[in-house]
């Protein structure tokens, strides 16, 4: 599976740190054991050597050189671990079982270590020895040493196996860590996939349980309980929206019917009542405005809740933008505003076609409304790294930066536009549509000549085709 993802998991990082600490501890422990063993063994050897030297020095002082040489010769014949060499000032051998002065390889604490050869089972073998040189009066030198080859081999084993041990620990640790994180990752993946589906609007999804009753199952159970609650709330919200819609639309419908009926009757009655008919017709226009605002509010509520996604399809923003451009082009021409489209290739999003068209139309409508004669409005499309952008920039008066957050709120209309027609819901609806599509509505300074406002709808670039298929099948 995705190695990069594996390396980024928290579980793997924890394992990695643990393995490193463990490896370091084991190395330190082994190093200490090595050092301690060697020190103890060396101390034993050194004690024997010291004792011998003391003994031999006594022999020398009592019996002189000859006596010492006799003793050395006698001891040399034992053929044990002990090695002796007695020489004069010119390093000529007088007695001992070494035939020449050895090449010193190390000199720890007045002791010398050297390699010598000794026949073992008919073969010459190079072995390690540790000893001490002792200067006697009269320029004679005595070397007393012990064969420490066993100790040497043991300690050398430490130094050669240590790196392998550490490497093995790291390897096993990392392998185990990878397995462990993969398992965790699989469980988390399941949770993430479910949450993703739910964010896309499929509220019926639940996190699967492994049945082991571990903390992941506990987490999943808690999430599922939370989801049950959210689903209930969303369903309630939807029911409220539906009944508000139904309970207000039915009387509004009757009201409009009655007004229409009255006009029809007055007109059928003929003459005289024209003034009355006009009044009622104006009431119908007012009613229609009321209905328009009500519909916009309901659409915002419904879109904001985002509970239903049946109408999501893979959509070419370029096509919608071209349609909206084409729809508004004569209006722009009439207002003497130049309307242009900057197209881009492959601007695909998953969306509701009529909601996105409505949002674009609202933005273009606003832009044309607020741009003075001779100005320009530009619809732009762009594909960025992680976004697909649709923007509408104008050369109108713009919106001061401090008011930009406020104008997307419901019914907010700036003082400057208080008298122009509109419900004050246009931008709120755009914002709700953006929210519905996981897109962001950003208001910024216009980049067309003459300044003004630029409204950008920034859609995430991932095309969620599977999700839309799933909910469409319901």
């Amino acid at each position, binding site marked *: 599976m995705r190695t990069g993802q594996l390396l980024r998991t928290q579980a793997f990082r924890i394992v990695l740190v643990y393995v490193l600490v463990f490896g370091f501890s084991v190395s330190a422990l082994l190093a200490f054991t090595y050092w301690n063993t060697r020190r103890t063994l060396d101390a034993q050897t050194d004690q024997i050597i010291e004792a011998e030297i003391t003994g031999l020095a006594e022999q020398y002082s009592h019996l002189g050189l000859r006596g010492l040489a006799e003793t050395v010769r006698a001891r040399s014949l034992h053929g044990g671990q002990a090695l002796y060499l007695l020489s004069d000032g010119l390093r000529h051998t007088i007695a001992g079982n070494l035939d020449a002065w050895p090449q010193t390889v190390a000199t720890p604490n007045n002791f010398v270590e050297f390699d010598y050869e000794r026949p073992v089972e008919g073969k010459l073998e190079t072995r390690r020895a540790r000893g001490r040189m002792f200067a006697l009066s009269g320029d004679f030198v005595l070397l007393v040493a012990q064969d420490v080859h066993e100790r040497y081999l043991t300690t050398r084993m430490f130094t050669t196996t240590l790196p392998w041990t550490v490497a093995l620990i790291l390897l096993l640790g990392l392998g185990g860590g990878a397995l462990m994180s993969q398992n965790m990752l699989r469980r988390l993946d399941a949770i993430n996939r479910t949450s993703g589906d739910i964010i896309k609007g499929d509220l019926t999804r639940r996190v699967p349980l492994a049945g082991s009753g571990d903390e992941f199952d506990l987490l999943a159970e808690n999430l599922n309980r939370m989801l049950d609650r959210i689903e209930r709330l969303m369903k309630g919200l939807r029911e409220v929206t539906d009944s508000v*819609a*139904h309970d207000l639309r039915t009387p*509004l419908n009757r009201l409009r019917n009655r007004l229409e009926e009255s006009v029809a009757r007055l007109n059928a009655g003929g003459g005289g009542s024209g003034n009355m008919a006009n009044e009622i017709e104006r009431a*119908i226009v007012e009613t229609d405005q009321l209905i328009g605002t009500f519909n916009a509010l309901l*659409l915002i509520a419904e879109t904001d809740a985002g509970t*239903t996604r049946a109408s999501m399809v893979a959509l070419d923003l370029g096509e919608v933008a071209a*349609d909206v451009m084409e729809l508004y082009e004569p209006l722009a021409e*009439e207002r003497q505003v130049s309307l242009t489209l900057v197209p881009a290739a492959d601007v695909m999003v998953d969306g509701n076609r009529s909601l996105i068209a409505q949002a674009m*139309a*609202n933005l273009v409508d606003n832009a044309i409304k607020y741009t003075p004669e001779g100005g320009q409005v530009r619809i732009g499309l762009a594909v960025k790294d992680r976004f697909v952008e649709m923007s509408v920039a104008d050369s109108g008066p713009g919106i001061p930066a401090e008011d930009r957050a406020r104008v997307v709120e419901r019914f907010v209309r700036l003082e400057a536009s208080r008298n122009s027609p509109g419900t004050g819901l246009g931008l709120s609806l755009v914002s709700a549509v953006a929210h519905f599509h996981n897109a962001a509505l950003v208001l910024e300074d216009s980049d067309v000549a003459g300044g003004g406002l630029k409204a950008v709808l920034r859609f995430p670039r991932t095309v969620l085709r599977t999700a839309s298929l799933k909910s469409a099948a319901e």
Partner: protein
Amino acid sequence: MRILVVEDDLEAQRYLVQGLKESGHVVDEAADGESGLALALSRPYDVAIIDRMLPLKDGLKVVAEMREHGNSTPVLFLSALSEVDDRVKGLKAGGDDYLTKPYAFVELLARVDALMRRRSPVGVKTRLDVGDLELDLLTRGAKRSGTDIDLQPREFRLLEYLMRHAGQVVTRTMLLESVWEYHFDPQTNVIDVHISRLRAKIDKGFEAPLLHTVRGAGYMIRAH
């Protein structure tokens, strides 16, 4: 023409039935889904107007069962529900058109007329005529009194739709839905601007205008 109205709000039903009768239609009515379905299956209708939410049997189910029985009467759904998805659901369930309450009666009437027109077989036409205005659907060319008229593709579709419904009122939302294939509320009446452009092309310089504005309703193309 024979129309079936299934509507549980009796006030609205009365108004609807009366309006349709005044427009010269024969109307049967029902106030719940089951009797509505029984009526729909018992005799032929030219159009059925069915409320989306009905007692006893939901409007969607009524239409689904009508279609299961091989009944292909055009259905206009009336709905007091919210719009975004219910519209899609209604059309998927077998509805032919969808109108949200509150509606203007002229809008409903125009849509009912359009549904009936859709049903009457006229054969495959390659040419549409209204007065001295001709539209050639094959060459995509328009002529008035023999003079070529240069039309943009969308203007052609607009004119085609109007001419296919010649003599009938066509509302702005109907035009947006069928010519642009969008269902939304353009804040400013952009359709009007398109119509006046088209009017400048086909009526300017001619004594008898063909493209008429029907006050409070929409537009109509007719010879006289």
